[in-house]
């Protein structure tokens, strides 16, 4: 652990969240701590493992401690604050602070950002590498709702960051990834093919798109964005990408797009190369059944697929451990519910076998 970080004052609780006399567990920099407020603004903190008291100060409505030797008194804020609620989030502290720092914000402490205009702010408690507790701040009671709404808008964005993936060349084949009926008007459908997350959407003219589920600007998932009918709008900074090309409107950037073919009522795509054509189907009637999600790898699912009359099945590898079974009913006399019963039983058998 970095000495500078250890020697820093760190926020561990809102004072008001500690009831007098009660021991409260928390976690800071991979270390379990216990907090206790004997009375008033007197608070004690110690590592759960050792019981040796840590330095503590109470300021800005919050309790601060340090795992090292905090050198200087705690920082000042440009305006007085009260606690506006604490939220646990599986995102590194740095990313939260960076995201909140945009616009008119300032950082009086490495783990604090305040915004003068909205009179809000946050203290971030680094719990572990990938998880944090965010302590929201408002100027007064009237500002509580603003502070919470502001963070509620940011939270899904922080949690929707995704890394760029390179599809494997072995994915040189057509796979169904949705049914055409899944892509309803103004919706963004979320799936994955061989670990590559996909955002599927239909524009108002009826054209379907299969895109990488990642905004090229700041890596936020497009599936939390908005389908505007002609463009997809990223939820973070509002970048808009055109149907068909994936080209950003007014900015030289482009979403990664994949081929998209609608056939037999299913939406097909391929991640790599120029594969053979989609399997031919010589059926006068075909109707997609409900796709079934199975928590098992493709190999387990493919080996278990039955040779069922009236039903043609196509597995979609979602990830190394998950598969979707798409099906086409080719016999109008068999109700969709019956196929669904068969496939959900099959799913349960496969999952029992894979477990």
């Amino acid at each position, binding site marked *: 652990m970095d000495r500078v970080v250890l020697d820093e004052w760190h926020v561990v609780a809102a004072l008001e969240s500690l009831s007098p006399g009660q021991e409260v567990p928390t976690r800071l920099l991979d270390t379990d701590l216990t907090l206790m407020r004997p009375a008033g603004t007197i608070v004690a903190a110690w590592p759960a493992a050792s019981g040796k008291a840590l330095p503590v100060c109470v300021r800005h409505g919050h309790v601060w401690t340090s795992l090292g030797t905090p050198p200087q008194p705690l920082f000042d804020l440009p305006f007085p604050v009260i606690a506006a609620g604490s939220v646990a989030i599986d995102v590194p502290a740095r990313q939260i602070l960076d995201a909140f720092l945009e616009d008119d914000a300032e950082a009086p402490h490495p783990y604090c950002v305040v915004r003068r205009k909205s009179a809000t702010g946050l203290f971030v408690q680094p719990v572990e590498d990938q998880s944090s507790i965010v302590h929201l701040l408002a100027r007064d009671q009237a500002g509580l709702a603003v502070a919470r709404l502001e963070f509620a808008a940011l939270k899904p964005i922080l949690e929707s960051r995704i890394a760029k993936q390179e599809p494997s060349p072995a994915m040189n084949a057509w796979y169904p990834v949705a049914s055409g009926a899944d892509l309803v008007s103004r919706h963004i459908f979320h799936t994955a093919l061989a670990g590559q997350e996909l955002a599927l959407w239909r524009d108002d003219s009826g054209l379907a798109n299969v895109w990488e589920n990642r905004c090229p600007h700041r890596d936020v998932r497009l599936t939390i964005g908005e389908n505007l009918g002609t463009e997809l709008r990223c939820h973070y900074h509002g970048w808009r990408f055109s149907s068909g090309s994936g080209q950003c409107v007014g900015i030289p950037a482009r979403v990664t797009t994949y081929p998209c073919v609608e056939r037999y009522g299913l939406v097909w795509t391929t991640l790599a190369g120029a594969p053979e054509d989609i399997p031919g189907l010589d059926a006068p009637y075909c109707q997609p059944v409900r796709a079934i999600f199975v928590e098992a790898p493709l190999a387990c699912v493919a080996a278990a697929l039955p040779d069922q009359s009236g039903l043609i099945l196509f597995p979609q590898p979602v990830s190394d451990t998950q598969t979707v079974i798409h099906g086409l009913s080719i016999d109008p006399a068999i109700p969709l*519910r019956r196929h669904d019963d068969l496939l959900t039983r099959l799913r349960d058998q496969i999952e029992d076998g894979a477990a």
Partner: protein
Amino acid sequence: MISLSGNALSRETYRIRLLFDLAGMEYELREGSDLSLVAEGERFQDAWRALSRLAPPDWQADGRWFAFARRLAASPTETALFRELDQHLWFGEREGKPFLCGDHPTVADIGCFPEVMMSDQAGISRLPYPALRRWTDRMRGLPGFTAFP
């Protein structure tokens, strides 16, 4: 006038607010630690009782799906419940029933909504539940809808 006080960050308070907001019922909201609701001369501490007692007639749910919402709230990480919901909604879409109990939303939809929206925090991705994701779009598009604070 209905008076509601509660922790704005709790699912119970949100469930009640969602009913009032979507059904266009007037109420005053105050910040408090425990849920407390006074309406029609009665005090409610249980959000589920309040939902079923205060919902206007066209927001009443059928017993099965109201009970389902309570089960989901009690077991918000139970995969089997999410699968049941997704399957029900998928067939509903084909039968002209975009909401849990038919063609319009009820307290059963409101009852399920907070757990479904919070599920990713509990580590449950909604990727395996496409019909459920479309239903959340429909819920968010309702007039008066308010997001979880």
